[in-house]
């Protein structure tokens, strides 16, 4: 049996403050010698002694701390609770945790913390300005002596913390029956209403589900209402196309808008996949990157990873390339949700090109206007007027796109009811 070589733990480091004190103390001692005056010596003596005493007080046994944390909360609010476990002893008060705050997030009140000899519990409250999907990396935990002259980074198990905040209404999108725009191979549509076709699988029962549709054995097994799903009754598929091209709004606004769009796509995908609806994902920057239509657990992991990994591209590819790329990955006819901020340039617009390739489109356009509120330095009444004019201008520009498909102007980031309404009413989606 090979014995594993013990890993050396993090060394103790001097902080810049220790250097400052030694230089100041030494300087005062030098002044005392130069002036033959003992007073500077007395003032400098504590400064010289402090680093030595701090180095002598380093706890030798405290080099590893394990972190266990989780997030909770609804909508904009995030509550992070965590526990640090180690033999802190009397040094619990000297342990700090450096936690990076995600962009667009504010702290709500001071953190609550309880320190014990073997356990430190903390609660942090944040508020997200807009929907976002972020992963908080493992924080740096360190010990620093009370005077702040020596410090040691503490090792240990540190999982990262994923935070998902998207409009709460998206959780119920999966319960919706999407229109089937593509027929299955060999399928002949019947005018007779009712259940037919081969058994496809089980799904969560809707509140108004007829008792005949309920699979009572499966319900008894799982303890929640499950209904049978048949091949011909299946809801339609959905492709989500995320536009990651740079726009005229600038990189910072682009990043924020993409963050909001990513959160919405994440919520939609998760909700639809929970209901076993086939979903495909494509991100278009300079080139098209796609995850083909599918469903299931593995597909869920694959697609959610692709959504989280979608980043703003530095170069904008032509819209034709996107449309042709879609044809390569997906069958024409599948309902396509295009998520694009659409900054106003008609050649930038994906909708006509995608539609021309045979994909019925719905545009979800996150509006940049809420991000500019209060940045113009206007008086409140002027600000309200400016907002109203900007909103009207945007609506006018977006109205040109209605010839290609339904358009959802998303200006209230914490609700997507308008999109849900469009998806729920198939008649709205049929554009001649």
């Amino acid at each position, binding site marked *: 049996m090979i014995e594993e070589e013990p890993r050396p733990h993090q060394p103790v480091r001097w902080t810049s403050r220790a250097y400052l004190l030694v230089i100041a103390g030494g300087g005062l001692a030098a*002044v005392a010698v130069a002036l033959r005056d003992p*007073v500077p010596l007395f003032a400098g003596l504590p400064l010289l002694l402090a680093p030595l005493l701090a180095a002598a007080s380093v706890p030798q046994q405290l080099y590893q701390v394990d972190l266990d944390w989780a997030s909770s909360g609804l909508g904009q609010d995030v509550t992070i609770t965590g526990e640090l476990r180690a033999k802190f002893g009397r040094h619990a008060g000297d342990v700090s945790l450096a936690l990076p*705050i995600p962009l667009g997030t504010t702290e709500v009140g001071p953190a609550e913390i309880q320190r014990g000899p073997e356990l430190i519990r903390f609660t942090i409250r944040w508020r997200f300005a807009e929907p976002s999907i972020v992963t908080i990396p493992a924080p740096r935990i360190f010990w620093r002596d009370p005077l702040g002259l020596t410090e040691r980074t503490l090792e240990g198990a540190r999982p990262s913390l994923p935070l998902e905040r998207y409009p709460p209404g998206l959780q119920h999108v999966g319960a919706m029956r999407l229109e089937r725009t593509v027929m299955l191979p060999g399928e002949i549509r019947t005018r007779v209403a009712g259940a037919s076709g081969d058994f496809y699988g089980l799904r969560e029962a809707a509140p108004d589900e007829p008792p005949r549709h309920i699979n009572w054995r499966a319900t008894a097994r799982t303890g929640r209402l499950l209904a049978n799903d048949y091949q011909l009754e299946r809801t339609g598929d959905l492709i989500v196309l995320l536009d990651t091209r740079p726009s005229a709004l600038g990189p910072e606004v682009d990043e924020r808008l993409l963050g909001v769009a990513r959160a919405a796509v994440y919520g939609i995908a998760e909700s639809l996949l929970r209901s076993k609806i086939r979903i495909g994902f494509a991100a278009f920057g300079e080139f098209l990157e796609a995850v083909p239509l599918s469903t299931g657990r593995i597909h869920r992991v694959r697609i959610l990873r692709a959504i989280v990994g979608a980043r703003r591209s530095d170069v904008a590819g032509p819209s034709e390339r996107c449309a042709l790329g879609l044809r390569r990955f997906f069958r024409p006819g599948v309902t396509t949700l295009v998520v694009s901020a659409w900054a106003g340039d008609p050649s930038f617009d994906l909708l006509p090109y995608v539609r021309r390739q045979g994909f019925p489109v719905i545009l979800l356009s996150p509006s940049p206007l809420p991000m500019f509120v209060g940045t113009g330095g206007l008086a409140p009444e002027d600000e309200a007027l400016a907002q109203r004019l900007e909103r009207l201008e945007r609506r006018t520009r977006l109205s040109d796109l209605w010839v290609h498909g339904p358009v959802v102007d998303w200006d209230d980031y914490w609700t997507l009811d308008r999109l849900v309404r469009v998806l729920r009413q198939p008649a709205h989606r049929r554009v001649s």
Partner: protein
Amino acid sequence: MNEPVLPLDRGGGLATAVLFGFTAGVFGLLGGLSVLYGPAIGVGGVAIASALRGWRPEQYRTVALAPAILALAILAATAPPVPAAELFGGLSGLAFLLWAADDPSRPSGGGRRAVPTIALASLGVGLAWAITLAVPGRAADIGLAGALLAAALVLLAVLLARLPRLTLGSTRNA
């Protein structure tokens, strides 16, 4: 994501700032400057340093100490060699350490936790003051200062030679 890094709970530092300001003020009063300027420099240095670290605790954690040290140095350099000034010079240095420990960018209660370290430092100051009282003449003071200066230079050389780290104790897991 890489913007502000915040500790969990933050200290206040007001009580120790008042204590440090009072000690530095008295030290200024006993010093060689006028009755007006001495305390003003002492209290002013402490006030500027406290305001600086209270305004941006993370950014000015180290820099904020500089105005207080500078005020202390001015007062010490101009003070006459009398036992009261020597005592308050030492007390000001100790109060400075207590104030530095009560950092708003650090977990609260730093001053309280630093008491054992500061108590040992005050023992050193008390011992040095007792020596100056017991041994007449300034030769002993200057000898002590020279020894401390040499010690400071050696310590600084050790710190700089081992920049940026100083490993203490075992480097392997037990």
